[in-house]
C-alpha cells in the first residue's frame, strides 16, 4: 500500500480504537456485528445448504469407494495413495495448470486493454457499440461455441486454415497436434471469457471518480501515466477479483475440451475435471473422483492464496 493509504488506515484504526474505549462502544460494536450477520444471513443460508453441504458430502466420499448402485465402502486413505501414483490423473493436473495460465493471462490483459480503449472513446454510441460487440461471445453457451469453433478450426475444411492459406501461410493442424490443440483450447476459451473481464473492467473504469482524473490532467499527466498510476490502482480490487475468478474458472475447465476433443489428442487437453468426470460418471468410481476433486480444491486454494498475498502489495483500497 502507498504511504498515503497507510496513514489513512492507521488514522482510522486509531479513531476506532479511541471510539472503542468510549462508553457504549461495546454495545455499538455488538449492534454492528448483529447488523453484519443479518446482512450476510440470506447469502450464507443459501450457499450453505446448496453448495457447502454438498461439497462436504462429496469430500467425505473421498474416503469411500462408491459406484452409486451399491452402498459406499470405507477405504480410508486408499484413494489418495492411489491418486499420487496415478500418472494419468497427475498429468491432467499439469494440463489444467498450463491451460489455466494461458487463459487467465490473455483474458486479463486483453480485457483490460479493450476496456481502457473503449472507455477512452469520445462518442457515446461508439462506446455502446464496442461494449455490446465484445460482450456478445459470452452470450453463446459453451456447448454452442465448442460446436461452431470445432467447424472453424477444422484442419482441412475449416475457415481459419482457409484464410491462413489465402495469405500464404500453411495450414495449422489445430486440433490434431497436441500442442496446437492446447493453444486452440486457450483461444476458444479466451474468445468468450474476454467478454467477462471486459464487462467487469468497463464498469469499474466508469466508477473512477472524474475529479481525480481532472486533477491528474491539470497536473499534466499524459494518457499512459493516467492509466498506470491512477486508473489501474483505483480499479485494482476489480483486477484482483477478475484474476481470482478467472483462475478458479480456468482451473475447472471442462466443456470446451470435452466437446471439441474429448480430451485429446492423446491426453493433451484432458483437464482435471474431465479426468474426474471420467472416473466418476464413466468408470463409476465416485470415491476416487471425489479424491481428485479434493486435490483440485487444494491446488486452487493455494493458487488463490498466492494471489491474495500478492494483492496485499498491489491492491489499493480506499
Amino acid at each position, binding site marked *: 500500500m502507498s504511504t498515503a493509504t497507510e496513514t489513512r488506515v492507521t488514522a482510522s484504526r486509531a479513531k476506532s480504537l479511541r471510539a472503542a474505549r468510549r462508553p457504549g462502544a461495546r454495545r455499538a460494536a455488538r449492534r454492528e456485528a448483529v447488523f453484519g450477520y443479518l446482512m450476510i444471513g440470506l447469502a450464507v443460508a443459501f450457499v450453505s445448504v446448496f453448495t457447502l453441504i454438498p461439497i462436504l458430502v462429496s469430500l467425505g466420499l473421498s474416503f469411500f469407494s462408491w459406484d452409486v448402485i451399491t452402498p459406499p465402502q470405507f477405504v480410508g486413505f486408499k484413494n489418495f495413495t492411489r491418486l499420487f501414483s496415478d500418472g494419468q490423473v497427475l498429468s491432467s493436473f499439469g494440463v489444467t495448470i498450463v491451460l489455466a495460465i494461458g487463459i487467465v493471462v490473455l483474458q486479463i490483459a486483453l480485457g483490460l486493454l479493450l476496456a481502457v480503449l473503449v472507455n*477512452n472513446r469520445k462518442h457515446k454510441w461508439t462506446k455502446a457499440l464496442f461494449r455490446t460487440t465484445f460482450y456478445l461471445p459470452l452470450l453463446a453457451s459453451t456447448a454452442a461455441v465448442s460446436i461452431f469453433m470445432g467447424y472453424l478450426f477444422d484442419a482441412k475444411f475449416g475457415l481459419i486454415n482457409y484464410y491462413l492459406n489465402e495469405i500464404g501461410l500453411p495450414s495449422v493442424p489445430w486440433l490434431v497436434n497436441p500442442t496446437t490443440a492446447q493453444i486452440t483450447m486457450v483461444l476458444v476459451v479466451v474468445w468468450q471469457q474476454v467478454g467477462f473481464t471486459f464487462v467487469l473492467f468497463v464498469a469499474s473504469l466508469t466508477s473512477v471518480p472524474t475529479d481525480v482524473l481532472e486533477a491528474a490532467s491539470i497536473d499534466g499527466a499524459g494518457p499512459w501515466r493516467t492509466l498506470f498510476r491512477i486508473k489501474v490502482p483505483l480499479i485494482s480490487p476489480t483486477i484482483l477479483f477478475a484474476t481470482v475468478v478467472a483462475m478458479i474458472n480456468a482451473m475447472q475447465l471442462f466443456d470446451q475440451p470435452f466437446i471439441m476433443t474429448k480430451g485429446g489428442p492423446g491426453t493433451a487437453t484432458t483437464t482435471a475435471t474431465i479426468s474426474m468426470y471420467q472416473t466418476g460418471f464413466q468408470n463409476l468410481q465416485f470415491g476416487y473422483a471425489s479424491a481428485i476433486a479434493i486435490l483440485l480444491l487444494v491446488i486452487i486454494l493455494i493458487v488463490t492464496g498466492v494471489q491474495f498475498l500478492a494483492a496485499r502489495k498491489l491492491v489499493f483500497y*480506499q
Partner: protein
Amino acid sequence: MTTLEVESTLREAGRRRRPIVKVGSVVGMIVLIIGVIFAFGPLLWTLSTSLRTPAEAFTNPPQWIPTDWDFGNYVAVFNEIPIGQFFLNSVIVTVLIVAGQTVTCTLSGYAFAMVSFPAKNTIFGVFLATMMVPLQTIIIPVFIIVRMFGLSDSLSALIIPALGSAFGTFLMRQYFMQMPRELGEAARIDGATQFGVFWHVYARMASPAIATLAILNFSGFWAEFYRPLIFLNSQSNFTLPLGLVGLQGNLGTGSISVVLAGVILAMIPSVLLFIFAQRYFIEGVTAGSFR
C-alpha cells in the same frame, strides 16, 4: 495563477499533447476494430450458416452475407421444439435468480466490505472456497437435497439453490471496497443508521456493480445446461439450452443449420438486455458517480 494564465497553460499543454493523443486514439481504434473482427467473426459465420443448408456450411470462402436468405431453419426450430415454452421457462428462472442474487449478494457483499463483525474473514474465506469445487463433483448431493425439499422436476429446483452465490458476493464486496469509507463515516456522524448508510450512501453508488452482476448472471444462467439436464424431467419444464439440444437430433442426425439457428435465437434476449442495461445503468451512473 489567474484564470487567463491557467487557461493558456492548459491550452499550451494541450497543443503539445494533441498530436500524440491523436495517434494514440487512431491506434486504439484500429486495435478495437481488430478486436471486433475476432469477436464478431465467428458469430457472423454462425448467423450466416444458420440461413443456409448444412451442405453449404463447408463451402469456402463462405458467403458472409448469404445471397438467398433461407429462414427455413428458423421456422424448423419453431416446428421441432416448443421454443415458446422453453423461452418462458428460461425467462422465469433467469429473472428470479438474477433478482434474488441482486438482493443477497449486494447485502452480503456490502457487509463483508464495510461492516465489522467477528469471524468475518473466515466466513468470507469459506465462501470463496465453495467456488473452487466444480459442479460435476457436487451434482449428486445437490440433487438429493433438491429432492428432499420436494423440488425436483420443477423450475424451483433451478431457482432456489441459486439464490445465493459466493461469486456474486465476492464481486459486490470488491466493488464496495473501491468506495471511500469517509462517506459512510460522515453519514454515521450525522446520525444515520447502519442500514441507512448502506441504503442512502453506498447502494446507489453500486449501480454499475449491480448492473454488472445482473448482466453476468443473466448470460450465465440463461445458457445453463447441466443443472436443467439433471434436475428436470418433464419437457414442459425444460429451459432453452436443454430444449435446444433436441435440435441436434439423435446421434447428431439433426441439421447443423437448424442447431445454429437455435443458438442465434437463444442469444437474442441476452443481447437486448445488455443494450438496455448499458444505457440505463452503466452510462446513467457515470455522471453521478462521485459528486
